[in-house]
Structure formats: structure tokens, C-alpha cells
């Protein structure tokens, strides 16, 4: 792992509201879900750190929509948990819209630019999503 990248990522999340202490002992039922994009160095470093902190780290596997509908939304419907991660700007935009549409709140978002390309570190507080009616 690139040490500088690791430090930088940790710094973002600290700047984004001191989230690491918040996740240190969340209790099993609200253990944070970490989302990462293996194509981004900063995101890979974040994932390593999140795993060490005991979080479930999930690879977005090239499609944030698929991840939301197939994995995150069903999981959050069963038990709310914060989402934390580092994603490219476009994927974060989609995730934020999906989470907001389900009634979740973006608590913190910080960005880092490499040139004009942005990566976003974020925390989304997830609670009380809408439920599907049985048809």
C-alpha cells in the first residue's frame, strides 16, 4: 500500500467529521459498511484501513447501481448501518441520489482532486428506508 495515499485518505475522513472514532465501536447492529473502488488508489488504501477497523469492505465491481439494488438496499432494509467510502465523483453522485431517495442522509463528504478528476470520501447515515409492498 502507498503510505502517502493511506495517510491522505485517513486525513480526508478525519476532515470529514472524525468518522474513524465514530466507527471504532459501533455495536454489531450498526457496523459500518465500507465501499471502495479498486480502480482508485486512494479507495484501495481506504478499504485496507476499513477492513482493519472491522468494517465490511465491499468492492463496487464496476457498477454502483447494481451494488445498491442487489446488495446495499436489501441489507439496509434489514438493518440500518452507515455507509462510508471513497469513490469517483460520478459513482458518489449516483449513490447519494439513491441513498437520499430511500430517505438516508449524507452526513459528510469531502473531495480530493487529482488534476480536475475528483475522488469523494463520504459518510451516509442510513435509517428508515421505504419498504416494498407485497404485490
Amino acid at each position, binding site marked *: 500500500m502507498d503510505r502517502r495515499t493511506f495517510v491522505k485518505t485517513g486525513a480526508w475522513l478525519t476532515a470529514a467529521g472524525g468518522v474513524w472514532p465514530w466507527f471504532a465501536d459501533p455495536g454489531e447492529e450498526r457496523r459500518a459498511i465500507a465501499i471502495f473502488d479498486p480502480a482508485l488508489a486512494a479507495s484501495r488504501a481506504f478499504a485496507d484501513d476499513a477492513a482493519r477497523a472491522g468494517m465490511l469492505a465491499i468492492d463496487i465491481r464496476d457498477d454502483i*447501481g447494481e451494488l445498491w439494488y442487489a446488495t446495499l438496499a436489501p441489507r439496509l432494509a434489514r438493518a440500518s448501518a452507515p455507509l462510508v467510502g471513497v469513490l*469517483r465523483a*460520478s459513482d458518489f453522485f*449516483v449513490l447519494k*441520489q439513491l441513498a437520499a431517495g430511500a430517505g438516508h442522509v449524507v452526513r459528510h463528504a469531502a473531495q480530493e482532486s487529482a488534476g*480536475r478528476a475528483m475522488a469523494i470520501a463520504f459518510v451516509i447515515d442510513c435509517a428508515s428506508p421505504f419498504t416494498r409492498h407485497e*404485490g
Partner: protein
Amino acid sequence: MLPPNLSDARFSQALNRFASIVGGPHVLASADDLATYADPFAPSPEAQVQVFAASAAVLPASVEEIRAILRVARAYRIPLWTISTGRNFAYGGAAPRLAGSVVLDLKRMNRILEVNEALAYALVEPGVTYFDLYAHLRDKGYRLWIDPPASGWGSVVGNTLERGFGYTPYGDHAAMQCGMEVVLANGDVVRTGMGGIDIGTAWQLYKPGFGPSFDALFMQSNFGIVTKMGIWLMPQPSAYLLGDIQFRHEADLEAIVETLRPLRLDETIRNNAVIEGAIRRAASVSPREQWYEGAGPMPESALAAMIDKLGIGRWNLHFALYGVPELIDARYAIVHRAFSRVRDADIAATKYAGDAQPTGGADKNLAGIPAMSAFRMLDWRGGAGAHVDFSPVCPFTGRDAMRQYALVKARAAEYGFDYYGGFTAGVRHMNHIFAAIFDRNDARQTDAAGDLLRSLMSDARAAGYGEYRAHLAYMDYAAAQYSFNDGALLRLSETIKDALDPAGILAPGKQGIWPRAWRGKRGYT
């Protein structure tokens, strides 16, 4: 923000009445809540975003709740802006055309009411997304495909009503719709076609019924609230082939279109094949700064270097063939032979079993699998990416395609934008989609995108072309361009509007159709 012509006190009364219908948590009026109904891609300065601001949102869970909401809206003369999921980004998202409208958000009505595998259809409510329907079909083991648009998070009903399209043989979504339930402004509930027989079994099978047929009246209009819709689904093929043909030269567009048209007309290629420009292909895998960091459109030298490095075409034709392997082989031989005549064309194809899944969003879409990777285009220009789309209908001829391409490319360059676009092939027409991608935190870029769209619409109309869809900011202009006989078409629409919705409560201004009560609010034409 208040609804027009309504006092604070009266609006508070109305909100209380809405809350008594749907429950307090389902009436949203705080600034934070309403932020989710703003248009994140508005191609205008911050102050103008208020032009499309909602005053509140109400989220019903049933037809009966909608009818009760309509009673309140009629009593207080509150305009309602109906959305299914409100993800029609690049065209306005969830934001209303008339400032102060209350958004009627139908996302809680998200039941998949029926799937019939033998007759290959589903009946859904407006809150059902393409991802939802796809997951339902897979979970239950139905051997049926959906046809997702490029962004699968949208509503099946909403996308169909806006005449959205996908990429399989069922890509013309409006054509694949069969049977609607509609709540009219007066609260009456209508079922179209065979749905008029309340114990019938053919609502999703035969569109017209006894006639007349009204379904199209409720598409791209503000004549009613669609609460259920039948949608035909594609039987899972035994196999399919995904083809990708790369073309080297800019001028090849004419030959590509002329070669593709007969193959679409005779149904050798049955899907909505896509001809995409190099930048659209490149933007899915790389940011612009990797190839060019200067201002203005990418110069030819940078474009050529990018094409070489990425191994993509100046134009790229993405198509698919479906069916039994023997049929696929025969059709592919015809397609291969036809496009081999285009100089330097590089043809590739991959075969899949019917239940196999390709990777990559564009390939998934051709296999009936929803994806969201199309949004990676937002990273092309960097910053907080956004886009607004110009969507002229293009006759299916090489001459028209080249004419539109040249027009759009030149005008986009003048305003500092790259040509990010492509053509989705219908049968006798193509949907030409150009996206002006901008950083929404950059006021200069955002302004330029807005100005560019207006110029493109003017240019296209002068050449005899019209848009099939437009952002809120240009709806009046787009409608006014259909000006035969001094705007007889819009007069007809507004005559129908006034008859069906005399109080003018349903989506005033949608598609340029203004009810008598709000006609003074019409914008730039």
C-alpha cells in the same frame, strides 16, 4: 417557496390536509427534503434554479390517496408535478416546470402487480425501477428479459411515459406498453384498452380495445396520472451475440447509417443498435484530462491520439443479435458482409448463451441487464460533472446523420464543448443524443451549456429537425418549434388540457402545455 397565488396560511392548511391523507412523514416541505427534488444538472446560474423549485412534496401509497390529494389540489388551486422516481436527469430530474408546484412523488407505489411468463408481460406501478423489475424476474426464475435504458435506476412507467428507449429488440418502450390505469384531474379512474372490461384478461395483451385508443395521450403530457402500466417483456433468447464495429474515419458516419438502415428495416438487426462517437466511447473509461488539458473542444490531434491509445473507433457501432444459434450465425454473416464494405471497418463479436451475463454497462444493457455505469460520463470534464442533452430526431439516412453531426459538432465547439454524442437506431428514424457535459460548480461552463442548447435547438429547427424531449428550461421552446398552421398542435393539446383539467392542477407547463389558469407562465418560445 409557495405555490403561486397562495398565502402562507392557506398553504399550511393544504399541507395539513395532505398529511391527513398520506401521513405526516409523507409530506415533505423542509429545505433539506426539497433539495432532493431540485434539478442537480440545471443548465443555468444558481438564481435561476429557483425557477424550477418545488414548494413541497407529497408521497401517496395508493390510487385512493391520489384521488384525495387531487380533491385538495382542486380546492386550493395547487399545481401538482407528478414524478415516478424523478431521475429524468439531463431533462430536469424531479423538479417541476412551474415554480411552487407540489411534487406528487409516486415512488411509494412500487408494486410489481403481475408477471405473466407465458404471455410475456408485467403490470407495474410507477415506483418500480428497472433494477427492481430485473431483480424480481431473476429472483422468481422467470425466463423473461426487461429492456433497460442506459440508466437502470429510472422508473419503468416514467421512462416509458417519456418515450425513453433501451437497446434490445424491445427498445422502443412506448411501443411495448400495453394498458394503463390513469387518474384524471377530476379524480376519475380510467383503465385503457381492454382494461375497460373489469373482469377481463386481455388488458396487457391488446392495446386498442374497442377504441378509441388513448394510451399515447398520457405520454409526454399532463392529461392524467398514470398509476399502473402493462409492459411487454422479451422472452429470454436461447443465445445472443454482441457485436462491435469500429470505424476509422469521421466521414464514415454516412456509410454506417446507409448500411445499417436496410438491416434494421428487414429485421436482420432487431435491436436499437447504437452508433457512438469516439468521445462517448472514451468517456466511459477515462477522463478528458488524460488526453487534453486545454480549454475549448479537444483538437483533432488529441482526439486521434486518444482513439489510437484506447483502440476505439472514430465511430463505434454496437449491435446485438438474438435467437437460436443457427439464426444468429446467418444474421451475423449478413451483417459482417454488409459492414466489410466500409473501408477500414474492424468487426468483432462475442456469442453468449441466453442466460449468460456480459460485463460492462453497455453490453449488459443489450442483454437486458440494468446498469448505472453510463453516469461515468460525468467524470469526463472533471469537477462536479453534470450534463444537459440535445435530442433531435434524425431521419434514418446517412445525409441527415452527417448534417446533424456537423451542425452539433460545430456549434458545440463554438461554445467550448466536445462532441459527446451518438445515434440510437430505430427503424426509420434515429435518436440523436448530444450531451453538453459541464462542471456544475463552474458558472461559466454551466451558462455556456445553457446557451449552447438554445442555439442548437434554433439551428436544428431551421434545418427542419425537432427534439423528441427537452429539459424543463426548453420545453416551451421545443413545443413552439412544432409550429405548423400557427401552432395548431399545441392549440389542440391545450384544448384537451382545458377540457380534462379545467383547474389546471396537473403539471402545468409540462411539454409546453399550459392550462388556461397558468398560460401567462409560458416561458421562452
